Structures are given as C-alpha cells and as structure tokens.
C-alpha cells in the first residue's frame, strides 16, 4: 500500500517535470520543427521534411555578415565584461575589505535591473552629447555593461571556493605578484572565467534590445537582421536561423557542464 502511494507520488513528480520541460522547451521544439517544414508560410501545417530553409540562409549575405558582427561584438563584450568582473570579484572577495561589500556587489549587479532598451538609449544619448557617433565600440560597450553582472555572479562563485592563502604561499615561495596571478590565481579560477566568458558571449550574441538604437548598416547584429527580416515577411528560414543559434548555445552550455562542471544555475 505504502509502496504504491510512493510510486504514485513519483509518477506525479515525473509528470510535473515533463510538463515543465514541455512548457519551457515546447516553443523551441516547435520552432525547430518548423525549420524543416517545406510550407512557405509560417506558422502552418507540417507538410514534410526539407533542408531547403537552411540552404536559403546561405543565399542571404546580410545574415552571414551579421553573424560575423554579432560574434565579434559578443567576443569583445564578453572579454571586457570578464576582465571587469574578475577585477571586481577579486577586490570584493579578498579579506580585509571593510563593510559595504554586499552593497558594492548589488551596485555592480544593477545593470540587470535597467531595461536593456534604456541602456541602449542611454549610451546613444551619452555619445551624441559628446558629439561622437556610437559606432561599433558603442555597441560593444552596451553589450559589455549588460552582460558584466552575469560574469560577476559566476566569478564571485568561483572566488567563494578560492583560498587566498595560496596567493600568500606563492609569494612566500618567491613568486612576485604577477607570477602569483599567472601560476596560482588565474589557473584556479579558470573554470569560472571560461564559464563567465561563454555565458556572456551567448547573452550578447542573442540580444536584440541592446542593439536597437546602436546599430547602423555596417554594424547590424544577427538579432537585428532577423528582426528586420520578419518585419517584411515571415517564412521558416527565420526558424532555421533560430534553430542554429539554439544548437550553438546548447552545445556550448553542455560542453561547459561536461568539461568544467560549471552551471549557470547550481
């Protein structure tokens, strides 16, 4: 009797998880399925299987160029964010820092609370008030500001497991400050630095609102190009693009989990 109740409970739990996954993943699965659907309108009934939408991407040079732009922006923004977050996390985690540490961490995380469109607009205004164009670097700056708090979270978690005494050990053994960072601090924090970079890269790569006011014809990112494309027409090619992005992001996340044992959520 008790056994069957437990089995029932387990079944209910399993069902709940399945529904939850479906709720989160369902739309995604629909998009992926659509990308293989030969029907030319979107959404529509499934009529078969084709790879032609993927081939169609290759005929749209603006998508390839935008992918390059997005990757470059994402790489630079992620690198900048990780650098800033590492230095901040180092200062916040070291012993001896007086009170206000919590307040500092909150302040550094505050870009999370500002709507991204506002960040984008603010950078545009700032740049124009100095009479300079925003251009490529304005775009990178906006993305870096937005993704930095995510890097900070991850790297702070890394520092929570870091015993600063190893730095002193290195110093007492003759390692100068730079040698100590190279030999001890950075290698020990590498997992959270790599994870921080990867997540920042993904977040920047797929982000639309940050770029809304900051891109020009030369600097259109992939989400901007996609946005422009679906304004004029909707066909499954855009689903094919989205599916490729999901595939890349999922692969990166799985690799992190597998090789660095770092998760976005613990």
């Amino acid at each position, binding site marked *: 009797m008790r056994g069957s109740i437990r089995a029932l409970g387990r079944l209910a739990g399993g069902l709940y998880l399945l529904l939850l996954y479906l709720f989160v993943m369902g739309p995604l699965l629909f998009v992926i399925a659509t990308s293989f659907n030969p029907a030319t309108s979107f959404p529509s009934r499934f009529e078969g299987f084709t790879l032609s939408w993927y081939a169609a991407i290759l005929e749209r040079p603006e998508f390839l160029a935008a992918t390059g732009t997005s990757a470059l922006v994402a790489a630079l923004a992620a690198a900048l964010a990780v650098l800033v977050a590492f230095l901040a996390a180092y200062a916040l985690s070291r012993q001896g820092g007086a009170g206000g540490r919590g307040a500092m961490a909150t302040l550094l995380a505050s870009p999370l609370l500002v709507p991204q469109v506002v960040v984008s607009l603010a950078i545009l205004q700032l740049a124009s008030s100095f009479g300079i164009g925003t251009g490529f670097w304005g775009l990178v700056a906006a993305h870096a500001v937005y993704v930095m708090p995510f890097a900070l979270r991850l790297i702070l978690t890394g520092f929570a497991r870091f015993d600063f005494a190893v730095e002193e*050990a290195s*110093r007492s053994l003759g390692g100068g400050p730079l040698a100590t960072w190279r030999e001890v601090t950075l*290698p*020990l924090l590498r997992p959270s630095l790599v994870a921080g970079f990867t997540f920042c890269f993904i977040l920047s790569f797929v982000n639309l609102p940050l770029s809304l006011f900051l891109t020009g014809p030369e600097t259109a990112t992939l989400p901007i190009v996609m946005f422009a494309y679906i304004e004029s027409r909707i066909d499954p090619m855009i689903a094919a693009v989205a599916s490729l992005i999901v595939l890349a992001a999922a692969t990166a996340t799985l690799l992190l989990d597998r090789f660095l044992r770092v998760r976005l959520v613990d």
Partner: protein
Amino acid sequence: MPELVLSHVTRRFSGHTAVDDLSLTVRDGEFVCLLGPSGCGKTTTLRIIAGFERADAGSLTLDGADITALPPEKREIGVVFQSYALFPHKTVAENIGFGLKMRGRSRAEIATAVEQALALVRLDGLGGRYPRALSGGQQQRVALARALAIRPRLLLMDEPLSNLDAQLREEMRVEIRRIQHSLGITAVLVTHDQGEALAMADRVAVMSQGRLQQMAAPAEIYEAPATAFVGHFIGQVNVLEGRLEQVDGRTGLLALPGGLKLAGAGQGLAAGQAARAMVKQERIALTRAEPTGLPNRFPCRVVERTYLGGGIAYRCAAAGASLTALLPNHPLFERFAPGDAAWLGWTAADCTIFPG
C-alpha cells in the same frame, strides 16, 4: 647568522591594537613557539614576519639586515599555513618545486631537490599525486617540504598541527623537531596549545593582548612565570585572591578572606597590598595525615572527584576557599571520595604571589 629581531612592532586594525610594541629576538637555529590565547595577535605577528601584513610601527631585521619594507617574495622565509594552502592544481612534486621554479632553477636541479624534500618528510613516491588525494597528515608534510625546499633563512608555522588528530599531532611534534634540528634551521611556530609549546620549543614567547608577557625556556615559563597572566595561563592553576599581611623581601604572607594565610614568593610585593597567589594543581599534596613538613597546610573536605585517566583531580573546600589538587593515578597515592576529610599542603616556592 639567521637571527630574527623584532623591535617595537605594532599593528592596529581600525582602533584595535592586534600587536602592541612587540620586541623579541629569535636566535640562530633556535625553535621558538609563540603561545597565547585566541585573538592575542600570534597570527598577525607571524604575518608581519612573513611580510603579508605591514607593521604600523617598529622594525624587523633578519641576518642583521632590515626586512621591514621587503615584500614576502624577497624575504626567503618559508611559511607553513594552518590550512596548508597547497596549490590544488599542482602535483605534490610541483608544489614542492614551486619555490625553486620561481627562482629559475633547472628542471634537473628541481627534481633532485624535490626528491630530497620528499625523503626528508618521509613521503617518498608520492610526488605524482594531487593534494586532494592525500590525508591531512600527508598534506601537512607536503606543506612543510614545500616551505623547506627553498632553503629558507627562517621557517614560520601557524598552528601547523591543529588540523591533525591527537595521535598524529604527537608524532608530528617530534617529526618537526627532528627535521628542524637536522637542518639547523631557525623556526617560529604559533600555537595556542601550551602542551605543544612546552614540548617543542627551545624558548616559548607568551603573548597576551598583543603584548609579549615572557620569553624563556619552557621550564622557566612553567616554574617561574614572570607575570600574573603567564602564571595563570600556563598549566592547571589555582588562583587565590587576598591581601598581603607581611612581606619580607621576596616572600610574603597572603591572607585570604576566609581566614587562610598562605606563604608564598613574588616580586614587588608590599604589605597591605591586594594580591593573588597561584598554585599549580599538581603541586598540591592531598593526604589524610597532616603534611607537617609543608608551610602551607590546611584541613579540607573533598567536594568533587574527576577521573582523568593519568590523574585524578579533587576539588576541595578549605575555610571558604576552593582548591583543586591533581594526584597521579598511581597506587602509591591515597584515594578520596567526595565528603572525605583530608589535608591540603604545598611549599612556599610553589606558591607564586603577584601584586594586583
């Protein structure tokens, strides 16, 4: 001559003085233990010597050269950390060889030195392991080997044995002394365990509230405490407060509120002064017959008996005073039960009186 001299070293943390005008000398080849209660500034002192912490005032010399402003990597001082602070991403051999690598030594030279260091701490063959694959005791030995591999001028250890179980701790006391002696290295060990300090040190430096109380050989610290703090802190001690009735040079008669009069010895005593007498528990005889040879002897009643294995502690009441006598657990010594009438007795030399 690797001699370490601290003169008037002071360190304050936001108004609180962790190390207060500390002056002491560690002689060449000497093993000194810094002993004191939690928070008295031992670790801070060690960190100042290592160069991890700056001194707000005062100076340090090593080998006669001023090292006060020298960064840690230039001091040639080996440090064993309480947490060991081994590099988790490096093998045991890489940990031990790290200091020599920083000095740009050749691979062959480092390999030889690592082998030697491993042999010294009796960990031959474990060079390829990672620290997490070692027991606490083995990690401790690696930490020691790593600090020694650079042939430091001075070896510092902060509570190196506190994470080991009791038996291993006893073993490592002997082991650390053996290694220190065989290398002839000057060493400073921080501990709050007086047994450890007395057993290991050539000289013990007792600290309290950032100040040096006394620095002397273990027997002198134990038998001839220089301050009331040391007298109270070292050993199992009875403290009796009263007023000095008679003083004759270094000896005095202390009257307790309950009427007992204790003969003892001390410095700077004056008649009429409030004072404290300190008597170590094991220096008190507890007998059924009156101990007529002892100047301090009082009839008492046994109140409580605590069996300690190696000894038996009896808490006794005598004229309003409470005293504990510690007797060896040996058939030659009488046994008592709570309620028994008995005599307490001790010599004047075992009764140290401190003014105040």
